[in-house]
């Protein structure tokens, strides 16, 4: 066990915890932020995507000890009222079916648009291919990323 201090969505947390614990389970079990989802546990589906210092990362394989001192943003930190441009775009395009993967999709999309405000179709596909949507909403996701890019520019 080790004392780890984390900044999640702008709030500091101190935890006495096994330093190998993946960030996902710290966020879900210890901090009670359950928007970040468990899908595979091996960084292969993207359901657990969060931002670590602004970059999209798979929290299910990211040891909490390495997250110390970094700025972590989860879906709850994007906005709680769906006002973030990517969230707004997701609603406008009515992307979700079951909705389980969408927090991870939104986090990947937000990180992409932060780096590249005008991604091409191919760039969207490449950046988003780590996020599985089992319901198959990929076309709507692509459309929503483009819509979000437009909202950001307005």
């Amino acid at each position, binding site marked *: 066990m080790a004392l780890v201090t984390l900044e999640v969505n702008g709030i500091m947390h101190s935890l006495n915890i096994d330093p190998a614990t993946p960030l996902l389970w710290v966020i*879900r079990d210890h901090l009670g932020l359950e928007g970040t*989802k468990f899908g595979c*546990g091996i960084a*292969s589906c993207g359901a657990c995507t969060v931002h670590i210092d602004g970059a999209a990362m798979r929290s299910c394989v990211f040891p909490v000890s390495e997250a110390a001192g970094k700025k972590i943003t989860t879906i*709850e930190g994007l906005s709680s009222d769906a006002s973030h441009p990517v969230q707004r775009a997701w609603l406008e395009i009515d992307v979700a079916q079951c*909705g389980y*993967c969408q927090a991870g999709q939104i986090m990947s999309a937000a990180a992409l648009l932060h780096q590249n405000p005008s991604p091409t179709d191919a760039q969207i596909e490449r950046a988003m291919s780590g996020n599985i949507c089992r319901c*198959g909403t*990929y076309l709507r996701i692509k459309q929503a990323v483009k819509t979000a890019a437009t909202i950001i520019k307005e």
Partner: protein
Amino acid sequence: MLQTIRTSFNRRSFLKSTALAGGGMLIGFHWAAAGIPMSDQAFEVPEEWFKFNGFLKISPTGQITIQSPNPEIGQNVKTSMPMIVADELDADWSKIIVEQAPLNTAIFKRQLAGGSQSIRQGWQSLRMAGASAREMLKSATAQLWNVPIHELSTKEGHVLHIPSGKSIGYGEIASKAAVLPIPAEVTLKSEKDFHIIGTSRQNVDGISIVTGKPLFGIDYKKEGMRMAMIVHPPAFGLKLKSADLTQAKKMPGIVDAFTFKTYNEGIAKSAFDNTSFNELIAIVGKTTWEVMQGKKAVQAEWKPMPEYVEKRALFDRTIDVIIPSGLESTASHLQKMDEAAKTAFKVVRKDGDPETAFGQATHVLERTYEAPFLPHNTLEPMNFFADVTETHATLVGPIQTPEIMEKSVSERLGIPVENIDIQMTRMGGGFGRRLYGHFLVEAAVISQMVKAPVKLLYTREDDMTSGIYRPAYRVTYRAAFDADKKLTAFHVRAGGVPESPLSANRFPAGAIDNYLAEEWSVPSNISVGAWRAPRSNFIAGAEQSFLDEVAEYMNQDPIAFRLTLLEKAQASPVGKDNDYDPVRYAGVLKLVQEKANWSPTNQNSGRGVAAYFCHNSYVAQVVDVEMNDDTPIVKKVTAAVDCGIVINQTAAVNMTEGGIVDGIGHALYGNLTFADGVPEHSNFNTYRLTRHREAPKEIEVYFVENGIAPTGLGEPPLPPVIGALANALYKATGKRFYKQPFLGKA
């Protein structure tokens, strides 16, 4: 034509109205209760139909709350079904709040959400509820204003009296309406007057989804809750010999570890109790990560499971199913399927004289198609919360069969059904997997043993390797032709491990004079179940690929060829019990032909077509592919869908797009093979699910507008697209694709 329906049967009402304590009205109804014919013919009405599982509440402020009992697995019922109520009610959609029905099984008897049937069954009853409330609001207004009811109309949450120009909000009159008797019969709106049905309404849970609210079973928690995981046998055909849990119990955060049996030996299980592994090892601890680590410290030995007899409770009887022993492999399955297809088939349907027709044929086309086992891979793994005390059990999580599982839990725990409360959460995908609730019983047993609330969670590896798969299938088609290349007979022989995919009364049955359908099966100890569009998910693609080859041999355009057969099925159907409507079938083909600009003479190089009927709906698709070296790129899919009246346009398009992406993805990549009883994939690093860059670049969806009562849409768009894809790949590559996955290893 206006339709009038009765709100009661044998003087018992399907609806109940109550005034609310704080003002307003509450109408209770059953979502499936109005499939009653108007005539007094003998018709047994299920007792449950008089119990209410949906509620419509109109508050004094005019806010309308619709409580839906239906589980949301991503098929949009939580939005679409209230749209039906709201339309008949003439409500203002912006004033509507949709809630999952409160979680109390004493009042709410809930339903199975499988088979794309929710909308189909709910259509009449939801309209009855909305229309009855509307009539009661009008009656109350007529009394209040002392005007004849026929002078009143309703619009966007108000009752209007056109002659005087007066209007009153529903909220203001609701308390008076609540105490009026339920009208004995109500007239439903005509389709042209729909103002919500057929429009696009955003998912009512959209904001909760995009802001990460805890909606899913995996998110449910309770003070003092423990986490639990399970170790199941590493191979089908093995069972527990012994377990050493000493080390596991010493691991940090672990509170208990033990072996247990999910079901009592010898009981008759329903199909939804299916599981291959009854004796399991449970690890219970404080946090998910600690339990994951504790699980790794379990030391267990396994032994061969002998052949056993499982009692299955069917609707009307109990049957014995022999579950074979042995460690099965994909290679052994293929060999056994070969043998069974040659020797162990039975005739299911025969029209005319197919033997003679084949004997006299100048040419016989024979093709065999195969597909492997598939896991469902819902992105939310199996999980359930259970809080079992000595007298009660509360269970919360993603399940589609709560009423059935309630009985299973009751039997296993020794707690009466009335003390068992199963609550449904939103489900992170279903695809059939959450019909099978063994994980719910497992959670209940673990909670009972540790005397604490627990959340059972499957890891992805547990989820992918412990069963309930789409069966492995094989089908051989034969077509007989005379010297003029006329199709004279058709033969289908289909089977699988452990079930056949055949639907013998589907097209082209009914369209061919000499028709023979046979089936066979190979027993297995690998647990299988419904997977999105059961059976159709394989046989549609095979059949539609074969018909493409038949048309090609006959030098006919594939759409024109199908339309000719459908005209025959319409004009002079062969045989009995043909389970499709040839006119609607032809309708989707004609629509897709038009929308995809299909031309027999000027076809794109990589273009294929297919159509299929299943779950009461008709879908035709044209797929356009291009090859990038050996990788197909699906440029466009054009879909024509006949699911009757479309309730929520955006959601219906979304479901269709999803089915297409799902069908194409599984046809190209989906493959769960076995070696010595062990599934050869256990996670998404090697098991390939379709991803963004592999999805079709464009999908266009068109609906047939025919005013027919709505039918299912969760499943029908998937099956035919596999055939359309195979046919497009043939045009693009010159090769026929007979084995799924099309891009898999041989």
